[in-house]
């Protein structure tokens, strides 16, 4: 690689080795390249380690690992379906709450709020994204879960109890609690990225809609939001990737139950929570290897979503100019 960089106009005289190294540029190039390449290598190594260490489990269970419903460490029977189900369900619940809330707030911040207020609010939202997940979990355990148990879940059972989604005893902990805490963790992403996408919509689009007699809301909803839809979708994918991989807050409120339940009030498990709870006490190679394969599944899921999100965000912020 070192020869690929041109540091000076090519001279007609052949350079001596001493001159070649004198300015140190080649050394600096090489040193920085090593550090940059280490980022690449360590990532490849991470995938390799997950792959190698999950080999026993992959060899024994094959694809039935993903469809098996039984997780029994004593019998060494490992199926990941309850955890995949829990992960997808809680993330879906989270998005159900955070997407309307986040997109609504993003519209307000991008279209309506005066720039100063918008910037302050966005900063506060970004601070919210920086709150460590263990702190959200702490709050969830001691404030949200008791509230859900005493008021929230009995209310849902009274009003929507005829649905299979809201049946069974109100524990407080469970899919619903995890979904709620994940909603709080995901909307900062949706707000800050959607707002960027909305701000990138050219001003002429708004002016054209308003000139045609549209109200502010009509111009926003029928012109600006569709124009920025890819960026908004990208922010949702990114939020979903974060929700799937989120560990601590979910582990603290999910309730730790290895079954598959229809009711949102029921305790369950997510992939990340299983790993967090079981990894340090796992005995036996097959047990560990199954947990590492769960990690691999989680890794693959989030990678696909992150990749898709980045493409979408790139596609919107690349086109159009920023609102002046």
């Amino acid at each position: 690689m070192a020869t690929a960089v041109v540091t000076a106009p090519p001279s007609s005289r052949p350079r001596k080795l001493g001159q070649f190294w004198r300015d140190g540029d080649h050394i600096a190039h090489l040193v920085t390249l090593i550090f940059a390449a280490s980022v690449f290598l360590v990532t490849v190594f991470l995938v390799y380690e997950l792959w190698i260490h999950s080999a026993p489990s992959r060899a024994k269970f094959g694809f039935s690992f993903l469809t098996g419903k039984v997780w029994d460490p004593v019998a060494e029977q490992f199926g990941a379906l309850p955890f995949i189900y829990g992960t997808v369900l809680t993330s879906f619940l989270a998005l159900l709450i955070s997407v309307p809330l986040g997109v609504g707030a993003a519209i307000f911040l991008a279209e309506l709020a005066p720039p100063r207020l918008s910037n302050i609010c966005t900063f506060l939202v970004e601070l919210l994204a920086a709150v460590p997940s263990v702190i959200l979990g702490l709050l969830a355990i001691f404030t949200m879960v008791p509230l859900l148990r005493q008021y929230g879940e009995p209310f849902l059972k009274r009003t929507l109890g005829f649905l299979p989604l809201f049946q069974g005893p109100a524990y407080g902990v469970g899919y619903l609690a995890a979904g709620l805490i994940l909603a709080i963790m995901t909307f900062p992403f949706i707000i800050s990225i959607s707002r960027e996408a909305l701000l990138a919509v050219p001003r002429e689009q708004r002016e054209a809609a308003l000139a045609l007699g549209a109200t502010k809301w009509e111009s926003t909803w029928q012109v600006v939001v569709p124009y920025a839809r890819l960026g908004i979708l990208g922010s949702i994918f990114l939020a979903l990737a974060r929700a799937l991989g989120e560990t601590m807050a979910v582990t603290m409120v999910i309730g730790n139950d290895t079954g598959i339940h229809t009711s949102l009030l029921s305790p369950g498990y997510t992939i990340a929570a299983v790993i967090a709870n079981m990894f340090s006490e796992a005995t036996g190679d097959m047990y560990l290897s199954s947990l590492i394969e769960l990690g691999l599944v989680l890794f693959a899921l989030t990678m696909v979503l992150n990749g898709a999100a980045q493409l979408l965000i790139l596609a919107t912020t690349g086109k159009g100019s920023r609102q002046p």
Partner: protein
Amino acid sequence: MDPIARRNIVNKIMLTVTGICTVLTVSTLFLILGYLVVNGWRSVDWNFFTKLPMAAGETGGGVANAIVGSGIVILIAMVIGIPVGFLGAIYLAEFGGKTVPMLIRYTADLLNGVPSIVIGIFAWTVIVVPMHHFSAWAGGFALSLMMIPIGLRATEQFLRGVPNSLREASLALGASKTRTIISVIVPAAKQGILTGMILGVARIAGETAPLLFTSLNNQYWAKSPNEPTAALPVLIYNYAISPYEDLHRQAWAAGLVLLVLVLIANIASRWVLSRGAAVQRG
């Protein structure tokens, strides 16, 4: 009803709804901070910062070892993460061609998206297993992996923001490329770089999942980074799920301390950046 009046009413309602969404989301931060202050501030006292944890079930004690342990683990992460992020970014912004930096940028984004618990598994397989015991080294390594992508991308972004005229002026004066980077480009971008590093540290300071089975936990002082080490986020987790009232009290206090530190770091990074912008403009 008159269609125009209806449209105006819809307009008002929907715009109000977006306003409510904003109030709900932004107020969450204050709600979190408020709850922590109300529940935690009384327990943040001298004992909290100076004493070791008591045996389970007894009241009193502090979290001194977890505070110091967090510091050690973060320090290890910084010693690994800052050079890699900083020098790697110099390569990406100044030396790299097209293909290799693109590949590295892509993997850095990939690494940034890896769930923290998976990072923990990786650190466990490459450090804890060969060493046969949990250690602060493993925890620091895991956290450094979370810090590198943030530092790398932020530093690169700000290095690219340095005007080309500065590079050309330095090269025209006869300085080598390395000299130009050291004396001109990095100083011009130093606020941005510092911001990236602070944000990286702020992110890892609250991470729990990568530490669960790397640095584990410790009731006492860790005598060296080779031993399992207590860390504030892990302590909050353990205390919160424990059945003891007194530990819950300390979990709130520890949560308050951690959150305030993380928020200060985030606000400080903003402040550094805004000062940098002012200097460049003026």
